[in-house]
Each structure stands twice: as C-alpha cells, then as structure tokens.
C-alpha cells in the first residue's frame, strides 16, 4: 500500500506492507536514520517520534496508521541551520554519552518544554520515564532539558 505522511514539514510517500512499523518506514523507506530501534518492545523509547503533536514509540505504531499524519523526528529539531535549544543544551550539559537514547530524549524533552518551559526536576523525570538511557546519564539529561526550557522561556520573554 502507498503511505503518505508529512515528516518534519515535508510530504513523503512510499510503498510499504500493512505490517510495516512506523520506525522501519522512517528508517528504511524514507532513509532517515535518526530515529533509533532499541528494544523493539515498547520499553525503551529510542524510537520516539512526535505523531500529530504527541510523542509515541514508533516501533508500536503501524506506518499505515500514520497515513496523513504530521510526524516530527530528531532531524526536524534543527531550524534554519541552527540547533534547537534542546540540542544545544544536550551538547552544553553533556546530556548524551553513547547517543543511542538521545533522539527520543530530545523529542520528549522538546515536547515538554514547548508545553511548559520551566518544568521541575520531578516533572522532567516523570516525562522521560518512558525513555531509557542505558548509560544511566539521567542527571545531565534532566539538566539539559531544564536548561533548554529556560533558554526557550528567556527567548520568549525577550521577543515579547
């Protein structure tokens, strides 16, 4: 079947079987490898994408179900050639070690701070509780998400 969806603002189409998972569609059919496959069992969140505004685990969504949907992947964070505040903060605060969980962590973090730019540590930890970092680098991930939120809040304030 032909599947058409919007990925990071660009309309993309490809042929796939009904059983094709969204993560495989993105990686294989669309050739975008930023979205990772970790556990493949809905546990780890490495495959997180934002589907119609909500972060979900794309190993547990059929590509067919994303027909007509808006998908945001880690490749869509960068704007006009510059890093998204969440990317800059992960770099600045050492929010990644091996980098495997990073796309998911950043997408969940970006979704959170776009809703609530100044989350508490508990709120951040709650939000990322569906994403596993096997390097156990949570402290810096939390720090990076909070710093990115502050950055966003300051930018909004200075533009207001």
């Amino acid at each position, binding site marked *: 079947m032909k599947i058409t969806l919007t990925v990071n603002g660009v309309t993309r189409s490809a042929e796939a079987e*009904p059983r094709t998972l969204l993560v495989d569609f993105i990686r294989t059919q669309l050739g975008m490898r930023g979205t990772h496959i970790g556990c493949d069992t809905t546990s780890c969140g490495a495959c997180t994408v934002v589907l119609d505004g*909500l972060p*979900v*685990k794309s190993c547990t969504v059929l590509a067919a179900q994303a027909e007509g949907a808006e998908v945001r992947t880690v490749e869509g964070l960068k704007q006009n050639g510059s890093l998204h505040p969440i990317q800059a903060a992960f770099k600045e605060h050492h929010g990644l070690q091996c980098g495997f969980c990073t796309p998911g962590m950043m997408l969940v973090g970006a979704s959170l701070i776009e809703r609530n730019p100044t989350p508490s540590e508990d709120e951040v930890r709650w939000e990322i509780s*569906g994403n596993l970092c096997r390097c156990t680098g949570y402290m810096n991930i939390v720090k990076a998400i909070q710093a990115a939120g502050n950055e966003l809040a300051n930018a909004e304030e200075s533009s207001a």
Partner: protein
Amino acid sequence: MYPASFDYTAPTSIEEATALLAELGDEGRVLAGGQSLLPMMKLRLAQPANLVDINRIGGLDTLDAANGHLEVGALVRHADVVNSDLVTSSSPLMASAAPWIADPLVRNRGTVCGSVAHCDPEGDWNSVMLALGADVVATSTSGERAIPIGEFVVDFFTNSLQPGEMVTSIRVPRAHDRTGGAYLKLERKIGDYATVGVATHIRLDTDGTIGEAGIGLTSVGPINIKATEAEAMLLGQHPGDELFASAAAAAGHAADPASDIRGPAEYKRAVVEAYVRRGLAACLSQISQEGR
C-alpha cells in the same frame, strides 16, 4: 520484529467497521491504540488475518457524562484520562489509576477500552472497572448491548465479545458525594507490569455507613479479581481500621498470585492485604476532605 502479514482496513464509521467485522468473523481484529496488540503480533503471540483500524472513526475519542455515567469512548487514550477534569470529578478511582498506566509515551497512544478488551490480568483498568461495576458497550451490525464487566472478563486474555462485535465505549457509574477511590500499584519501574495492583472504591451513605464498596486486584491471578467477599464485609458497616483490616485479609484470601520474577506468591498476597487496607483508608480520607 515484524508481525505476520495481515490485511488492513481503516473504516471511517462504526457502521462500516461493524459491517467489516461481521464479514470477517473470527478473522477480524480491532486495532485501536495497538500498545498491547502490536507487541503481541510482533512476538507472533497473535496473528490476526485482518486488522480493522478504528482510529479514523470520528466521535469515539470523547469522554462524556450522561445518565449518571461517565462514557469513555473507544478511542479515549490513557493520557486523555490523566488530563481530564471530568474524570477527576466523575471518578476518583479512574483519576487515581490513570497516571499508573504504562509510561507517558504509551499513554499517549493506548486506549482505555482497548486495555479492558485485552483482558490481560496484569492490566490495570479491569481491576478499576470491576471495582466500579462498569459496563462495556459492544456494537455489531445488529445494534449495541451493555455487558457488565464481570461478564465481559471471561478468562486469561479472553473477553465475551461475539464475532462481529466491537467495544465502542465503557460506561462507568459516576461518583456521588461521599465517594472515594484509590489505585495503588507496586511496580519495579515505570512501564513494567504491576507486581500487584489494587483498586478500591467506597461511597458512604448519609448515616456514615458504607453504601458501596468495590475492590479489584491486578496481577494476582489468571484474570483481574473482584474481591466480592471483602466488598460484602464492608457494606452497611461504619468504616474503620479494624473493618478495613478484615476486608484486606479477605481480599488477600481472594488473590491467587503466582511466584515469578516479580516476587513470591506469599509476598504478593501480603502486598494485596497492605494495599487494600491503605487504599480503603485513602478513600475514607478523600471523603473526609470533601466535607470540609
């Protein structure tokens, strides 16, 4: 991991979906959030020949209060329940349970009705529905029927839907005044199945005695268990620590846990007792705060 091949259809109305399901019979399986069904298909524990994806049917994603019920549509996601003021005011037990379902990403996708229909004894919602006495609304080409949750949950991963039927909503009785509800869940980590989960619900009559009591148990038997003996002990009585302790002991007796990686059976039974006691006390404290 890939599921086995299947045919996929995405109807846009209940009529279209039920006509398809009638035609497909045993071969058809409804796909809603897919957070339990797709993992099972990837592990080839389920191999439906046809998936009927109901996500494109309008109007199923609503939470409504009508006729004394809270109606939870088939596409209401767990996250919708977490964020709903209507649920907070209509069902303290549902509001208490919702944040404990899976993890935030799964809650964005998985549905309450799908979880109930899945009948996994490690699923949280069926304990809640058993405690509250909810009805499952099943729709087919010949109309709809309301199935009491106790008759809907038949066995391990088995519900009483007939071929051609789909769950279109769940009707939860709305809480009256002097009602409390609490879901307590012991889990090793967020997103893990419950080691033990306990749903408790009580409503006090105007004379201060218990007019309604509901207790549901998760992960301690082949199905979610309604602790009927414990509920009966509470009815008509004045609430108190001693009464709650006896009901908790009865609920522990009703539990039928197995020893596994999450702990030995006796430990789980002890947790059931402790959580029933604490859950009932939490219900009571909600009710006393309500009066202030």
